[in-house]
């Protein structure tokens, strides 16, 4: 499974990006991501989950997941517009993008 994660904007304006092939990750890390994707019901989410009100310093995220034998799914979202179940997934990917 391949994952592309991008976060832009925010108070700092720092762009972070990660391209992850779960085959390259330690198995427990890959499993954890699988589980977080399932908990977020990621493949059922709409492509656009952005805040309805204009705001400043929001983070803007783009997450694309390409399963081994499935169709790529991309979701663009902002913090308070995404479902709560996305939070742990976003945190995990942010840390991976930061090299942690």
């Amino acid at each position, binding site marked *: 499974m391949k994952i592309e994660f991008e976060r832009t904007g925010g108070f*700092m304006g720092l762009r972070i990006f990660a391209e992850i092939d779960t085959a390259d990750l330690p198995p427990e890390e890959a499993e954890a991501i699988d589980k977080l994707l399932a908990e977020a019901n990621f493949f059922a989410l709409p492509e656009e989950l952005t805040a309805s009100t204009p*705001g400043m310093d*929001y983070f803007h995220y783009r997450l694309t997941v390409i399963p081994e034998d499935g169709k790529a799914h991309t979701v663009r979202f902002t*913090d*308070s517009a995404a479902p709560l179940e996305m939070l742990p997934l976003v945190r995990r990917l942010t840390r991976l993008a930061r090299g942690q």
Partner: protein
Amino acid sequence: MHTGPHLPIQCIVPPHMLQNIAQNGTDEQRAWALGTLTQSEQFRGQRLATQQFAVMGLSMVTGGGLNRSVFNARYTTELPGSLARGEGDPPTGDLAVDEAYDGAGTTYEFYRQAYGRDSIDGQGMALLSTVHFGIGYDNAFWNGKQMVYGDGDEDLPEAMRLFNRFTAAVDIIAHELTHGMTQYESRLNYFEQPGALNESLSDVFGVLTKQYLLRQTADQADWIIGAGLFTANVSGVGIRSLKAPGTAYDDPVLGKDPQPAHMNQYKNVSYDNGGVHINSGIPNHAFYVTARELGGFAWEKAGYIWYITQRDKLSAKSDFQAAANLTYQVAASLYGSGSLEQQAVRTGWQEVGITVSTDTEPPTTPPTEEPVGCRQTLINLLMGRRS
């Protein structure tokens, strides 16, 4: 005024209806009208949590002035969360709650005392903040209605943390609150140059709030946004520097501060709404140079010129050149044509590669009296006062 209350046409609820309720309604109906008012003016299009509604209704009844509410999202992303501290409540012992409360108060007092402004909208709008937002949330934002703060890397072991809580720096709080003010005044678009100006105004009044609090002159201040925000694991002094854009941090994990200090380094990027947090370095530095040239307390002259420009001159599509021309005009109307203040403004923009132009100067309008808005007019009416 001896005539009946004037009701501006931008009111959402038909004014005659509210007026009727105000004059003939029961207490319950009057309370409903106050609530409607709150919703239409500040929470347009948003369903309110009952609690928030009650808080806002209460703040309306007190009739402006400093009115803070700090909410706790309890590590979720639901806004506003539950009320943790209201105006006048004693400290809670929760650092983030108390910092958000104190920082909003400091910013309010700065605007009030330095420029005579009563809150975000100039009419005593309640200051709403939410803390403990999200998990490991390295950010703060203004969502169009309120300020929101994350706790940084609270979920990581200390050795891995890069960010402290975002309420730790008063200039970040003032930055977010100023976004609210921009929304009510110049309404600068949040894209490319107008967006970078929007960001810059938040940074400028962010650092000025801190300088005012510490009573620092331009040469004593550090001109850093977000000092104390990074943990000791990061190589950097803060998020941005107005004095030397591009030098605030240089770190193996976070990279290097990308801000330009001059037009010849302007970054045309597609992300970050066209680099609004990046190219803000240019107008930020123009302000710094103006303040440096004038010396003394930066909020008194340079800050006042920028404040009046934001309040009366800038509009949604203003770019850097327009901001340069307008601050130059405002300096002339406040301090005189050819004054030291006006020369300092010219130097400020010149040092970032922008030459002020007076060629296409639009006719200057004398400052007008602040109109009494729809909200305040109706509140006065509902509370039985006549303005």
